[in-house]
């Protein structure tokens, strides 16, 4: 969907497109490493940092916070450092980097809430349902809220427990819903949406 209307996207929507591309690519690499008996977790360590970085840049730019260049520079430094420290001291490459995922979800929820709050304050933006970034923020918020405790549960239950399968299905359902909404936004981007970044 994104490729069809890529030329109509504003730069910030292109970040979302790159993010989804990176996510898709990491899933493919995960499959490959899984078949090569290296496991998936190693890929998630890198993917998570790149995703967090892209999402942070996206939010810094869409919310238009002051000193945005400083905050982008800060996140470019901070996320890899956090990932490396987590990898060295807490969760090595072979284990799932749930700490970083947890932190990523927490920061996404915070930034989404702030973004939605900024919409509330913006009197000029009244037709929110035709604002593509409103849907992206909503998708991020629902995705992170829906999966926030899933990662906590994984850590607490140590990947065991009789409801683990059910939880995985739940997470997949939330993912499908959210990505379907993003796909629709991409599909109707030039026709239904105003380009108000």
């Amino acid at each position, binding site marked *: 969907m994104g490729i069809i209307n890529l030329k109509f996207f504003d730069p910030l929507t292109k970040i979302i497109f790159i993010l989804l591309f990176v996510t898709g690519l990491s899933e493919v690499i995960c499959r490959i490493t899984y078949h090569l008996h290296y496991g998936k977790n190693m890929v998630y360590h890198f993917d998570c940092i790149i995703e967090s970085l892209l999402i942070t840049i996206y939010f810094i730019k869409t919310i238009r916070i002051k000193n945005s260049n400083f905050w982008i520079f800060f996140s470019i430094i901070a996320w890899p450092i956090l990932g490396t420290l987590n990898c060295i001291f807490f969760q090595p490459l072979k284990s799932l980097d749930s700490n970083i995922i947890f932190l990523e979800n927490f920061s996404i*929820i915070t930034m989404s*809430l702030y973004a*939605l709050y900024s*919409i*509330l304050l913006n*009197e000029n*933006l*009244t*037709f*929110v*349902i035709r604002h593509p970034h*409103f849907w992206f923020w*909503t998708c991020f*918020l*629902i995705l992170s*809220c*829906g999966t*926030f*405790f*899933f990662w*906590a*549960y994984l850590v*607490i*239950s*140590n990947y*065991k*427990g*009789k*409801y683990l399968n059910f*939880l995985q299905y*739940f997470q997949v359902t939330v993912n499908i819903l959210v990505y379907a909404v993003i796909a629709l936004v991409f599909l109707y981007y030039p026709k239904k949406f105003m380009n108000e970044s």
Partner: protein
Amino acid sequence: MNPDSALLIFIIGTLILLLFAFTLVIFLIVHKKKQYHNLLEKQTMQNTYQNQLLQSKLEVQEQSFKYFSEEIHDNIGQLLSIVKMQLYNIKNNSTEPEVVAKVTDCNELLGKAITDPRNISHTLNSGFVSNAGLADAVEKDLEYIRSAKEVKCTLHVTGDEYSLGNEKELLVFRIIQEAIANAVKHALPTAIDIYLDYSPIGLGVSIADNGSGFNTSQENKSGIGLNNMHVRSDLLKGDLQVTSVKDKGTTIKLHIDQAEPVNFSTN
């Protein structure tokens, strides 16, 4: 912690967070919708106010026109008529051929001096448009232009004529007058064609000249005349389009719906 008790925390936590997220998003959409309606209402009020302001401005203008028209007709016209009668008496009582010839010349000039202001007086008077009808009023105005300037003015009327109502016809007449005055003053054309196309859905007016034309991108800067036309067109809820080609001429097109009401008083 027992995985099953952790599951309970997970379910409650997730549900609360999801509920919170959905509530927030729905609240935002509803709030913004309300804000949109308020903004729309505010804009409507502003437009109404603006419209009333324009109406008042044009009403004052029409009152001034009416006053000038009456002054020209009643004072200047009467005085000149008296002077003409006196000259006629002088001519009749005089035996000297030289005096008679000069008085006859004066009488002719005076006749023109009486006719021209009378024409102006008629075209300024809003009552004239309502009495004569739009097409006749335009024809009368063109007669005056023909006599005063060397411009070939032609009126083309198509369709079955009907009355748009006094207010509407006066506004259309003023737009045509403004367009002609602009053309004569700035474009120096040799011909002006006015088309009145009466159709069941509305009236189409076109004023085309073969003058010097102008740059329509600088239309807004070009003065009060065009602006007044747009104001009147807005009052008529009409569609006014100005097209101009340098050294080829200008065409002003106006379309108004017959059914569209207009609230503009000239009394």
